């Protein structure tokens, strides 16, 4: 009987784990806009270990979107970030489109209203510039997590060509 109970409870845990996996998938999928995931790590040194990402909609000229992620660099104080777009869009035009800035906070970014604030002194790892391209991230911490805040901005002077556009960016950290 005891054996049967153990079996049942183990079955229950296994089912729970699977359910947890499915639930996790659904929950995270909702949180991230059901974005495609690929967690391959060819170099194995630079790793994203946490991210809070959501789609952003109805952006207009001058709008900014902030997202945070946590990055481990395996001892390096710098990393390379390659941002690509899945398809061409005026939003990803290097001259007229979205801009990206990345800042690092020694501690986790705090969500306050619609922005993330650093409870300590933040440093700029990537100055404001065109979002799509190959970027060098500087002033990273080789130890522990790098708490990064990504700010995507639609230029204030964005032309009407950016109206009604969508873009899907792919971020590759190396």
């Amino acid at each position: 009987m005891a054996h049967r109970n153990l079996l049942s409870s183990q079955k229950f845990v296994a089912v729970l784990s699977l359910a947890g996996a499915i639930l996790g998938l659904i929950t995270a999928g909702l949180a991230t806009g059901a974005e495609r995931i690929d967690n391959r790590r060819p170099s194995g040194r630079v790793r994203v270990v946490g991210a809070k990402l959501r789609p952003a909609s109805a952006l207009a000229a001058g709008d900014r979107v902030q997202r945070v992620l946590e990055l481990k660099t395996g001892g390096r104080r710098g990393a390379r970030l390659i941002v690509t777009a899945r398809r061409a869009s005026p939003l990803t035009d290097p001259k007229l489109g979205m801009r990206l800035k990345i800042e690092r906070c020694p501690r986790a970014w705090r969500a306050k209203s619609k922005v993330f604030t650093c409870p300590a002194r933040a440093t700029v790892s990537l100055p404001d510039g065109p979002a799509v391209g190959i970027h060098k991230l500087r002033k990273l911490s080789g130890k522990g997590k790098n708490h990064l805040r990504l700010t995507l901005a639609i230029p204030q002077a964005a032309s009407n060509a950016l109206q009604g556009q969508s873009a899907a960016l792919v971020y590759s950290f190396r």
Partner: protein
Amino acid sequence: MLPRRPDKRKRSLRWGVVLGATAAAFVSTSVALGAFTSTVTGGGGALTTKRIFSGVRSTSAWTIRDASGGGAEAIKDDPLSYADGVTTTTGSAWSSTFSATRYLEFDFNSALPGGLGVSSPQLNFRMASTNNAATWCFYVEVYRISTSTLIGTHGSSGAPTCNSGTTQTTTQVSLPEVTTTTIANDLRVRIYVDDSKSKPSATDMATITGSTPYSSFTAYEQVYRDASSGAPAATNWPPASSGDTFGYTTAAAWLATFATTRYVKLTFDPGLPAGAVITAASLDFAYRSTSAGADTACWYMETYNGATLLGAHGSSSSTISCNSTTSYRTDSVSLPEVATVANANSLTVKAYMDDTLVQKTQLDLVRLNLTYYLD
């Protein structure tokens, strides 16, 4: 062997639990990581922009009902904007052959949000000869106002569109060169005309219509140039622009005191798309008395959606302003009641006026400014 079976089963189940939990963690983590992956790929951070960015779009009124005399409303619409039988006859007779210097020209208003695609753009041109036995022909050139660049030609002197007689005929000319609202906001149409009997023509309507992905629109003429003589003479639609020496003169003289039966009613067609969010609305109104003497004209107004009163601005005892000079006075009146697309697209402004010397007034500018966006 038998006693070992439960252990084996237990072990395999334990492994199952561990693997399941690991899978759970992996799947959850993977998905939670979302767009950013360690080194290679990740789902894109999906970003979309508003369909129409916020901006001020201004338009005038081409529909006017004038009850300044206190009786029935006189229809004082722009004669060139509606197929209403109210025509504008050219100042001179046309030649029986085309000439590069003889044409009609229309500059259209620019009330559309820029940068949108345009579908089915067309010129709606309604005209007739003043001689029943005449055959009259025309062809069309389309220009950008800002650059005077020719962007389209429809027909030619050798292959024009022809009609005959004095019966008004509407011809629709497709304008595929008007691909965006930026171009539609910057349109000049020149129409070369000849007449087999060398007679003047009578134009009933010249408008541009089309659609953006979000709404249809009509562009109205605000400058009309009659070059039937070979020398263009411009007539501006008076309320559409200020400082251009063209003012709308009321049909009758006002009284020295206000009367609810005496007003000028102007109806707007801003063409806002459904779902647009209006963040500001205002009316620019420039007026003066026609008298050069020492009289004073005053005004106040009401806004309507059809017959429904939306708001009152000033009153007979507390006017918006008065003007005792010979120059135009311009007031900008905030219209917070124009907060919905329905109210904006059916907006009528009723301006009540008086004049101490019982004179007519002139309106140099009646312009509706709407700030809006579309998510």
